[in-house]
């Protein structure tokens, strides 16, 4: 069973449906015991970093996620959930994340070379920088996934498994550190490609995800 962390952030209907579509049992929960029993954990999220980080803390879920990761369970952060895996974010002030991915979350606008729309919204191509990443097992460079974001992970190259090109620079798309994974895009909104990524994640077990 895959536990989807419920900390009051984001729309989980599609995520639950997409896991259902690949035959994976999923439960949206904030029950520490259920999460401890789950095979793997998904950290969703949309909105602002500071607000989500605060809700993760106040709901007690920060500690629960930490225990799951320490127990070796695979963790997947999606969109803002991925950004929360970083050490810190500079979205409206300096805020601290979970610290699993060394690096920081910064506004896209200040780091792009060309003038383009912000948010980065739409389907964009993946370039795999570390094809060994288990959740990208069935994905090849050039496949399209759906992005919606105005901030992105930076200075995380050793932990980057895929990037996408936007505004003339590579933008972090997938991060990976041992049993912790993150996708900046929404796999649950990325058609068949996204379902393949979720399927690969749902095949992972506590013992088989080491880097």
């Amino acid at each position, binding site marked *: 069973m895959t536990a989807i962390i419920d900390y009051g952030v984001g*729309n989980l209907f*599609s995520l639950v*449906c997409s896991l259902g579509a690949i035959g994976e049992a999923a439960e949206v929960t904030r029950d520490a015991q259920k999460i401890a029993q789950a095979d793997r954990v998904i950290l969703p999220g949309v909105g602002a970093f500071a607000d989500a980080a605060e809700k993760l803390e106040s709901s007690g879920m920060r500690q629960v996620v930490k225990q799951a990761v320490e127990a070796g369970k695979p963790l997947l952060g999606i969109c803002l959930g991925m950004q929360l895996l970083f050490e810190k974010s500079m979205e409206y002030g300096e805020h601290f994340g979970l610290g699993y991915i060394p690096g920081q979350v910064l506004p896209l606008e200040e780091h792009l070379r060309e003038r383009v729309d*912000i*948010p*980065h*919204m*739409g389907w964009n191509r993946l370039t795999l920088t570390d094809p060994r990443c288990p959740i990208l097992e069935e994905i090849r460079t050039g496949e399209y996934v759906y992005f*919606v974001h105005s901030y992105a992970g930076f200075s995380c190259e050793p932990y980057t498994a895929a990037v996408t090109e936007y505004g003339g620079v590579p933008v972090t798309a997938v991060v990976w550190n041992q049993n912790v994974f993150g996708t900046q895009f929404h796999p649950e909104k990325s058609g068949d490609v996204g379902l393949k990524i979720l399927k690969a994640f749902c095949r992972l077990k506590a013992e088989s995800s080491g880097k």
Partner: protein
Amino acid sequence: MVTKRIIPCLDVKDGRVVKGIQFQNVQGVCDPVDLAERYSKAGADELVFYDITASAEGRNLFTDVLQRTASRIFIPLTVGGGIRTLDDFERVLSCGADKVSVNSGAIRNPELISQAAKRYGNQCVVLSVDVKRVNGSFHVFLNGGRVDTQMDAIEWIRRGVDMGAGEVVLNSMDTDGVRKGFDLAMLRQVKQAISVPLIASGGAGKAEDFVELFQAIPQMSAGLAASIFHFGEVEIPSLKKMLKEQGIEVRV
């Protein structure tokens, strides 16, 4: 680079897809869930569901359609029509919508944009605007194009983006239903005023109109249309093939 999006729009009334020709004469077309699935398989990049029901019963049918669609199709869904309060946002987001489009509701209460952006994030709030030329300037119209607000469209759109709209759908009432191409002059002026994604709506009659849109205004993010897709006059796979051959980046 991010690809240009092709977005079919489904107007839903009492659980069925309909399309108004210049906002009049609605005809029944098809089951929205089947149609949505067909479009998703054909390569639609996103879908817009527009709820044109007024009754509470029709509203329940709409949320049912939305739930069934979101449980079968895994591409972004935008929902609009009758969104006036944060409760309306909550109602459609909890049924599988990813983005919510506001139109008349935001004109009557602009704070709706900032409140929704604060609660759900800018990426969730789409400002949809019906615009028509009146004495040489662009006016915003209310209620599906029946009432002239006298508001200047570019000022209103700029204000909406400042308040937190993460995307704009511009529907030109001057070209809507005419099928002679998108309103390039109007779109160009609006795009120059904003730096969030802009979606063109109103006027597409054939595949070449999309080519013309993205060639004339390369900063455009997406083109939206309804009846040409519903009636099979433009098939999405051949449309995307044509765009690609013309050097326009699309997801194929």
